[in-house]
């Protein structure tokens, strides 16, 4: 805590040398696992009904990064996904659009063409996603390719091997280099919390990414289990809240992977509301990396409006 205080006064100093960065990260207050999980569990008991539910469902839809990241992706699949992003519910034009479509770099151009003029962003994973096991030069080129193809947002992965072996400066430098390569694109930094394992690591990696220039910190690639969990997201929300207090800057948070139901999404929004605060209830600062979640949100939305559940066949597969 003391470190946090002194860090606040001299956040620029913190990154001036490897040794200082290391001391700062190791000096961050610890996270008690039992307590963090208990807090997340309590927040999960909030009961969101009627008008609050309506608000939450529509907000959650607008926060989705509709994602396909498979080896079998084709331009056709991406075009279909873009159509869904533009008009999620064919039966109800009042259903809002999603925030972005997230694809591999080689499909960015396809998505970009489909989404022209819609206000929906194209996000691209980059930096040898999902493992990040490649040279910095290749990661930079990967990023530049994505941006050159029109990506508005870049979702990079950190080098977990470097992080876990304590080479924080290397992780920092890499994020900073990608930040530069990404240019004006929004940079989301994937921590892959399922591989960092401890909440202490999640907090340190969150700060490391923010200090290095992340616009967003993101939990997971979706390729490692566990992907996003509520306690991990809680710890990351505490980090962006504290970073905002120290610097006045708003950094976004994106849980990704494993969030499949509207009920789960609402738990995340409650946690955002009561941890980082209402400022973060905005697609600019909170996103869900998801695909199947969208249909459940739409189904709940229809249920709320009409009083009955339509069958799953009334919603499109992608």
């Amino acid at each position, binding site marked *: 805590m003391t470190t946090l*205080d002194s860090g606040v006064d001299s956040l620029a100093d913190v990154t001036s040398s490897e040794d200082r960065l290391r001391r700062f990260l190791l000096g961050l*207050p610890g996270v*008690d696992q039992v*307590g963090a999980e208990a807090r997340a569990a309590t927040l999960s*008991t*909030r009961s*969101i009904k009627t*008008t609050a*539910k309506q608000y939450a469902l529509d907000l959650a839809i607008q926060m989705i990064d509709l994602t396909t990241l498979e080896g079998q992706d084709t331009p056709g699949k991406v075009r279909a996904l873009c159509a869904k992003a533009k008009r999620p519910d064919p039966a109800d034009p009042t259903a809002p659009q999603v925030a972005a479509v997230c694809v591999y770099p080689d499909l960015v151009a396809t998505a970009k063409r489909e989404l022209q003029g819609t206000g929906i962003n194209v996000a691209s994973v980059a930096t040898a996603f999902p493992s990040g096991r490649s040279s910095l030069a290749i990661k930079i080129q990967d990023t530049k390719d994505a941006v050159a193809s029109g990506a508005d947002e870049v979702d990079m992965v950190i080098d977990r091997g470097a992080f876990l072996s304590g080479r924080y400066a290397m992780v920092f430098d890499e994020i900073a280099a990608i930040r530069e390569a990404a240019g004006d694109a929004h940079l989301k930094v994937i921590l892959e919390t399922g591989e960092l394992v401890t909440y202490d690591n999640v907090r340190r990696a969150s700060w490391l990414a923010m200090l290095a220039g992340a616009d967003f910190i993101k939990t997971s690639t979706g390729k490692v289990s566990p992907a996003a969990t509520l306690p991990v997201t809680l710890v990351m929300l505490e980090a962006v809240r504290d970073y905002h207090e120290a610097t006045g800057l708003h950094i976004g948070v994106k849980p990704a992977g494993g969030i499949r139901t509207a009920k789960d999404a609402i738990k995340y929004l*409650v946690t955002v509301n009561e941890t980082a605060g209402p400022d973060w209830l905005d697609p600019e600062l909170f996103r869900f990396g998801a695909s199947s979640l969208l249909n459940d949100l739409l189904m709940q939305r229809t249920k709320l409006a009409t009083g009955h559940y339509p069958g799953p066949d009334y919603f499109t597969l992608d």
Partner: protein
Amino acid sequence: MSRFEYAPAPESRAIVDIKSSYGLFVNGQFVEATDGKPFKTVSPASEEVLAEVSEAGPADVDKAVRAARKAFDKVWGPMSGKDRAKYLFRIARLIQERARELAVLESLDNGKPIRESRDVDIPLVAAHFFYYAGWADKLEYAGVGDDPQPWGVAGQVIPWNFPMLMLAWKIAPALAAGNTVVLKPAETTPLTALAFAEICQQADLPPGVVNIVTGAGRTGQALVEHPDVDKVAFTGSTAVGRAIAKSVAGTHKAVTLELGGKAANIVFEDAPIDQTIEGIVNGIFFNQGHVCCAGSRLLVQESVYDEVLARLKRRMGTLRVGDPLDKNTDIGAINSAAQLAKIRELSQVGEDEGAERWSPECELPANGYWFPPTVFTGVSQAHRIAREEIFGPVLSVLTFRTPAEAVEKANNTPFGLSAGIWTEKGSRILWMANQLRAGVVWANTFNRFDPTSPFGGYKESGYGREGGRHGLEAYLAH
């Protein structure tokens, strides 16, 4: 972007069926009181009258004790532990089956939020019965001699803060050990005890094994002083506990007392800060602070005082005070007008003595008994709000510089029920736990209860232990 306003999410009252009036539960049946006047129990959140309840006078208490004696001599005492266990398991299952109803009833009568009665109180009640059911046929392994025997008739008096949980803490070990009981619930919260009487009927518990006599201090006194009661168990204020200890002195009666507290919740500079804030909030605002082991004295290391206070205030701003039956309520109603008056009085004393009072902005309902979550800073050991039990959502904040000073201040109280330590340093937790004169010491958590864990006080917080193997000991002669 508009705000995320949580719409009202009330738990339905339809699940409970409150009768307009209740008799006493004696010898397996509800009977009219013979020598007391009926009294009303109200919902503290609205002041609405919930039901009329009978006051048991000395003659009624005598009947209940006779019924308990007879059941002890003829049925429950001679019964094998294995068979007693069957009844206790059955009661535990019935409590689980009726959990929702009991939670709503508890919140209505007591004022506590449904989130707590649903997620904490009632699950723990069932857990206590399950736990002690398991002991009933294993008493010779409880570590209190190879042939432990029940005392006989237990007279039990419980408080209003956890009406049904305190009932479980008292009745489950008593019955498992082979005693029969006469229990008096608090006068402001009798309804779940009366529902429990119905559960005893449903479970076919032999008549007289459990008797419930409702009433106030006079009824409690008649019970505790009844000559045929063998064992007295009381949870409540230190003043009443002292009177009970005097009244049973020189008699054959065994006694356990669980009394007041003024627990220190100690925060070191290396504490896991976010969870510590949750622990402080849970320590003092859980159950409106109507908790004998509440962390009502916050001791913060001076080096992190500003940061802890700022974060605590920010967190207090998100607490939701209001309708106990709303599933999103964090803090419910104060249990009674009398308790509210006491909290107001002591808070006024805090201001008068120069401490600084702060509460987040919060709108309190117009009817009922309400007090906002409150924190006092600039409190010193000499202030009354640092010494007396307020038993409300009021936190007194003090500071310390070294671990030794923290221990000194924490122990500088006539009470000794509980304490909390917040630090990432394991060796310090162990050292502190050894130094603190408190029955329960929580490390990096607070207000955690489990049927397997003993609970009880040092000094004026009482004597004897409840819960766990130790809790059995109180109901066995050895």
